[in-house]
């Protein structure tokens, strides 16, 4: 009896092993490094990956997640050592450096081979003609206005132009009560204030800080913006402590009724409501120069995605990128993140259920995404250099023209 069962058992075991082994051999495991998972509700990104795996048998996805800064360092080192994950979460500010290291794959041939509809994506980030990143989710930066402070100051019409903004800021400022019209965070620790709170004025009016692919900081748009920011500061409307203020402090001041207006990420709406449920605020587009009627550029930060040039599974990686950029999945992901979609057809659910998000979505729909730091070399360093010159200008050490000229010189050295 025992003698007869043993071969049968052995055969079954061998068959099971063979099945398992072939199954394992057929499976491709993609590594996906990003900072999104910790910022999304627990388990939600894994659930999206599980759905992708179910829709694409034979492909497994391993998520490598960490905070933003850690992910940035990990990706830089991975690019240098050739150990970059198959799929990587990207910030637009990193792509130039990564491209210089030949670390990112060109997605143009993949798009062509799969007949990918390019019109469905909000933007394709290109460096040297190579399509290296898609913004999956965008966090736009409108102006937040404290409606109670505006009403108390007699601001009945929310500002639409720079002149109106200056007037409103002046009216809302009561330095004796520690109350100011605007807040400008220019800490050198995180110089993103240059992008979000300064250059956003340029982009809002459809202008540019670049000309022919080179910096044009001495051009009228940037000099005018610096002059405008200086006039706000000279009028005493900017909350003090500019040179060391961080984005978190900016939000705290707004939450605590200490500033009337701020340019900030839409991602902070829920945080603001949580910190001060009674705060009565509205969102408006960044005001423009006088007589400008064109489309408004909307500053944004994004969760971008790209594929490693060294990946052995680029075909499978492209499937994952397509999946995340598809209408339904993209809508699901951005709904979880309170962000705006990378797929123009996707409509996140919060825009219908929440008035503030709905309004911001309208601003988003009528404008266009604008962030010229995306794809620039050492973007953070450029911001730091501009930040230092802006600080000198606000300290009265130089004029807007001199600040622009000094920043231009520093930037050109990096190009």
């Amino acid at each position, binding site marked *: 009896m025992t003698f007869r069962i043993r071969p049968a058992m052995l055969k079954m075991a061998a068959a099971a092993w063979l099945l398992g082994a072939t199954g394992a051999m057929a499976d491709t495991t993609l590594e996906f490094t990003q900072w999104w998972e910790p910022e999304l509700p627990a388990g939600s990104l894994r659930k999206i990956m599980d759905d992708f795996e179910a829709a694409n048998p034979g492909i497994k996805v391993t998520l490598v997640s960490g905070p933003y800064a850690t992910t940035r360092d990990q990706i830089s080192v991975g690019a240098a050592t050739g150990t970059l994950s198959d799929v990587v979460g990207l910030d637009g500010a990193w792509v130039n450096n990564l491209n210089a290291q030949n670390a990112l794959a060109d997605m143009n041939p993949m798009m062509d081979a799969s007949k990918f509809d390019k019109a469905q994506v909000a933007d394709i980030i290109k460096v040297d003609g190579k399509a290296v990143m898609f913004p999956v989710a965008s966090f736009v930066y409108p102006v937040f206005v404290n409606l109670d402070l505006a009403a108390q100051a007699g601001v009945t019409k929310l500002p639409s132009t720079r002149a109106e903004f200056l007037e409103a800021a002046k009216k809302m400022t009561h330095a004796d009560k520690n109350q100011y019209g605007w807040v400008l965070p220019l*800490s050198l620790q995180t110089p993103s204030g240059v992008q979000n709170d300064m250059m956003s004025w340029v982009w809002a009016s459809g202008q540019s800080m670049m000309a022919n692919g080179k910096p044009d900081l001495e051009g009228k748009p940037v000099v005018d913006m610096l002059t405008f920011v200086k006039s706000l500061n000279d009028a005493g409307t900017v909350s003090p402590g500019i040179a060391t203020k961080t984005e978190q402090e900016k939000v705290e001041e707004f939450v605590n009724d200490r500033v009337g207006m701020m340019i900030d990420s839409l991602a902070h709406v829920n945080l603001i409501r949580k910190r001060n449920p009674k705060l009565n605020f509205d969102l408006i587009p960044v005001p423009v120069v006088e007589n400008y009627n064109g489309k408004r550029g909307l500053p944004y930060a994004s969760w971008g995605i790209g594929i490693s040039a060294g990946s052995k599974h680029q075909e499978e990686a492209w499937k994952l990128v397509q999946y995340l950029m598809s209408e339904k999945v993209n809508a699901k992901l951005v709904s979880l993140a309170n962000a705006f979609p990378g797929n123009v057809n996707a409509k996140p659910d919060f825009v219908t259920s929440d008035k503030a998000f709905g309004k911001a979505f309208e601003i988003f729909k009528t404008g266009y995404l604008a962030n010229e730091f995306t794809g620039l070399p050492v973007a953070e360093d450029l911001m730091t250099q501009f930040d230092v010159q802006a600080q000198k200008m606000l300290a009265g050490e130089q004029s807007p023209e001199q600040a622009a000229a000094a920043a231009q010189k520093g930037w050109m050295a990096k190009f």
Partner: protein
Amino acid sequence: MARQKRSHHRLKRAVAPYLYLSPSLLIIGLLMLLPMVTVISYSFQNSAVLRRDPSFAGLKHYQAIFADPVFWASLWHTLYFTCMSVVFHMTIGMIFALMLNSDRINPTLRNILRVLYILPWLFTAVIIAVIWRLLLEPNGVVNSILMQLGIIGSKIEWFSSPETALHAVTFANIWAGYPLFMVSLLAGLQGIPKDFYEAADIDGAKAYQKLIFITIPQLMPIIISISLLDFIWTMQVFPLIWITTGGGPIYSTEVLSTYTYKLAFSSYNLSQAAASAVVILLISLGLTLFYIRYQKAR
């Protein structure tokens, strides 16, 4: 045969100490020497870390940082920050140690003061930075008190003004670091024989004479040792400055550590950052050698 055995035995005896030392030598080699040698090698490469095949750069990166005025400003700020911190750490530490060692203060009050004075030591650099940012912000408690007392007429942006920022971060560091001196000097004070003071009393010495001719000479070995160590540690302070000012406004609080950090993680110029790190290493090494020589001389 016997000679062979003897020589084998002698070899074993000679090798044995090295075998005992080998685990610690291995750890020191892996955790200290290897990173140091790697950073030094990066400073002589082009595009270190960022390229798989970096080329030899010679002294290019050293020349670049020595030609950068911000580097020299950082060096000057580092020296100011360090010297002021060490001098005030020592002065405040000495005053508090004398206070806690004095029989004239009620023992209960002395115990309470002992706990209070040591408090800054218990906080991490991040907490200290946050506390001082809150206290010294333009609408903070310090400005409010100073204005109420009529000492200042308008709000001062302590960390945001180029005129005050370096003094403000130095002040925060002084507050954070004096307990080390206080505790060390207190231990030293308790070790000074009472006979010295009794003999001085018989000779009619006044309090300040006892301080100058007995206390300070007796504490001198501790003062020099701790000062040198404090100098080395303070020179490398990073989180406190980074969190309070980020090296700004403009470059007014840029020190060697923040300068190096920005080169590495803002400019991604890891080769120049390595060169800057080597300069810090050399300065620290010089001070360490001085410290070791002093310890040996004792």
